[in-house]
Each structure stands twice: as C-alpha cells, then as structure tokens.
C-alpha cells in the first residue's frame, strides 16, 4: 500500500497537475490573468493533432485488427455511462431527468485535454501502451453524446405525449465536424497516409509538453470559474461529478484488463481506456448537448464536468490508474 501511495504521490507532483492546480488557485484568487481564446483554440488543436499523428504513425506500423475489440469496448462504455447517470443521478430527489442525462452524456464523452495529459505521464512512468489507443476517443465520445440526446428525447416525448423522432445522423455529423475530433482524425489520417515524421520530430513532439502545461492552466482557471455556476444547482451534481470519473475509470479499466487477457492489449492501453472513460468533455460536448437537449440546464452539466469532473479525472484518475498499472507490472 505504501508503495502504491508513493507511486501515486509521484504522479501528483508531475508538471501537468501542478499547472492545473496553479490555474485553479490563481482564478480562485480573482487574478486578472487571461489566456486569449484563440491561443486556447490553437493549443487544443495542436495537442490533438500531435496525439492523432502519434496514433496514425502507430497504426501504420501495427495490425489494424488489434483496435477492433478496444473500439467496441469504447463504444459500449460511452453508452453505458449515460444509462448509469440516467438511473443513478436521474433518480435522486430534485434532479430533472434531462439534466441527469445531459450530465451523463458529457461524462461519457471524452476530454481532449485529459487524453493529452495521460499520454506523457504514461511515457514518464515508462508504462508501455499502444499509441493508437488515443484513436479510441471518437469511438466513446460520439456514442455517448448520441445516446444522451436520444434518451433525453425519448423521455421528454413520453412525458409530453408527443412523438418527435430524433435524427441520429446530424448528431454524429456534428460530433465528427467538431474541432477536437476533426483535429484528432486529421492527425490520424496524416500519420497513416503520409510520412509526417520530420514535422513530428521537429515541431509537434518537442512543443507538446509545454503547450500541455499551458492548457492545464487554462483548464484550471476554467474549472474555478465554472464553480460559481455549479453552486447554483443541486449539490448532487457536484457529488456525482466527483464520484463518476472514478467509477467510470474502474469500469473501463476492468474491461481493458479483460481485453488484455483475451488479446494481449497492453495494461498501459487499459489505463488510456480508463482515463478516456473517466474524462468528461469540455470542448465539443457542451455545444452539441446544448443544441440536442435544450431543456437541460447547462449550468448543471457544464459546471459538473468542467469544475469538478475534469480536475478529478486529471488529478485523481490519471495517477490512480498509472499507479495500479505500475503495481501490476511489478514495479
């Protein structure tokens, strides 16, 4: 146990977490520090592009059939997470079902910043993983958002007695066209189809960790700001946002370990799957859900995800699962 704690502590002291906490602290103290929106957009593009390129280059040099089972697992996890929220959070007193479903959708969807944070930490801990695991992002992200919007629509039409058919394809299209998924998939495509190694080695790879640190400050500041909104909604959302990433992470880690036994999927890969499941979308998910479930209160689901979900996923889940992986690898 003490061994696990020291591994856990080592992870907590990584620059990623330090910058995240720094962002939370300065925003909570009312600092005027502002990082322009356009820089934020560029950084998230850059990070996802780099992750996509890494994944694409890895896919080029691997057997594409390996990704099949983890991809199916990612899809199922994205769907199951929405239903967990529907039947736990959604059953609590004073919680409106559309709010619970939208929150589940956001927690099932994936955060690019959390994904960007786990990969270098795995590298630093020398836990091997398949680089293509990052390409699992859209496999979990899109089904979660689609499921949330469908479940909410079915619930609302039953309640009001009207039957409005939900068009699924526009939701998928919107998710694929979102900046985060586009950057990632473009990176994967360029990695598979072209030979981007020169720009990868000279530009994307060396700048990755620095930009990630800046992004962590932004996410920290954002978390502190969204906290004010979360205070206006039921406390259950805050409690859910704290517990859900850990539960989802363990669920996905378990599934990852089963695939590990079946096909030799790496334990590091299971960590990536767990962290993807633990993460909650903060870029592309909110506008999709705002448009798809208009009656859900955005202060509830965005507050839960950005103020608590993302910090918990980055600060607790990443060190937790890397720590467990290191124990399993006999470090």
């Amino acid at each position, binding site marked *: 146990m003490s061994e696990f704690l020291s591994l856990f502590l080592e992870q907590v002291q990584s620059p990623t977490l330090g910058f995240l906490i720094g962002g939370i602290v300065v925003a909570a103290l009312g600092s005027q520090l502002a990082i322009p929106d356009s820089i*934020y957009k560029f950084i998230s593009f850059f990070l996802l592009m780099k992750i996509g390129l890494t994944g694409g280059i890895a896919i080029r040099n691997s057997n594409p059939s390996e990704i099949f089972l983890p991809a199916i697992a990612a899809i199922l996890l994205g769907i199951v997470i929405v239903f967990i929220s529907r039947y736990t959070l959604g059953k609590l007193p004073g919680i409106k079902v559309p709010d619970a479903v939208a929150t589940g959708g956001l927690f099932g969807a994936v955060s690019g910043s959390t994904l960007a944070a786990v990969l270098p930490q795995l590298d630093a801990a020398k836990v091997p993983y398949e680089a293509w695991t990052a390409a699992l992002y859209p496999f979990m992200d899109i089904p979660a958002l689609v499921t949330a919007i469908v479940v909410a629509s079915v619930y609302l039409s039953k309640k009001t007695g009207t039957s409005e058919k939900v068009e699924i394809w526009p939701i998928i299209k919107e998710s694929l066209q979102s900046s985060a998924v586009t950057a990632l998939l473009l990176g994967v495509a360029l990695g598979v189809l072209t030979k981007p190694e020169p720009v990868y080695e000279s530009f994307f790879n060396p700048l990755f960790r620095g930009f990630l640190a800046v992004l962590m400050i932004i*996410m920290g500041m954002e978390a502190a700001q969204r906290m004010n909104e979360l205070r206006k909604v039921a406390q259950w959302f805050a409690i859910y946002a704290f517990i859900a990433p850990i539960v989802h992470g363990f669920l996905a880690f378990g599934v990852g370990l089963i695939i590990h036994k079946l096909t030799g999927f790496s334990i590091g890969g299971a960590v990536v799957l767990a962290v993807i499941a633990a993460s909650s979308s903060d*870029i592309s998910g*909110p506008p999709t859900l705002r448009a798809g479930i*208009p009656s859900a209160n*955005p202060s509830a689901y*965005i507050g839960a995800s*950005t103020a608590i979900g993302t910090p918990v996923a980055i600060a607790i889940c990443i060190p937790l699962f890397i720590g467990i992986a290191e124990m399993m690898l006999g470090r």
Partner: protein
Amino acid sequence: MSQQVWKLVIVAEEVLSKKLTKLIKEAGATGYTVNAAGGEGSRNVRSTGEPSVSHTLSNVKIEVLTGTRELADKITKEIESKYYADYSIITYIYQVEALRDHKF
C-alpha cells in the same frame, strides 16, 4: 436617399447563431449582421473574451433590417416559438433610417 426600415435585434446564445441566421434568411430577410456580445441577464452573466472553452457561455447579437414590420414580426414569432423556452434570448425592434438605397 434614405428610407424608413425596421431594425430587429436578437441577442442570443452563440450555439444558436447558425440556426437563427438560417431562420432569418428563410423568412425572407435580405441580410443580417452578427456581432459577438456579452452582458448579464436573467440567466447569469454571459460574456465573450474570457477563456470559455466550449463557447456555451458566449452570446451573439444579430441585427436584421427589414422593409416591413410584418417580416420582422414573422421572424420574431418563429424565434419565440422555437427558442424562447429553453435558451437565453431577447429580441427588440426599432425604426431606423437606412441611408443606402436598397430593397429590404
């Protein structure tokens, strides 16, 4: 030459921007102007500029010039029935003098 026209102003969530401009064009308006907007209303402070990662808290201000009050009312009614219940949105209207000769 100038002419009296109606200026309809819609301040709404940025996520609605595309849908609203589509609705405006389909109703028959000849054009519109979109600006980023910030401020405070009954649904909390909504602003632009701060690093709001998902843009769900940003607003836009859309201005439409219409030649007739009927067209402006038609647009307002459609917006009201579709979006008033669930979104932060306000609309207001006033008469202005358009300076350029143009068929609105």
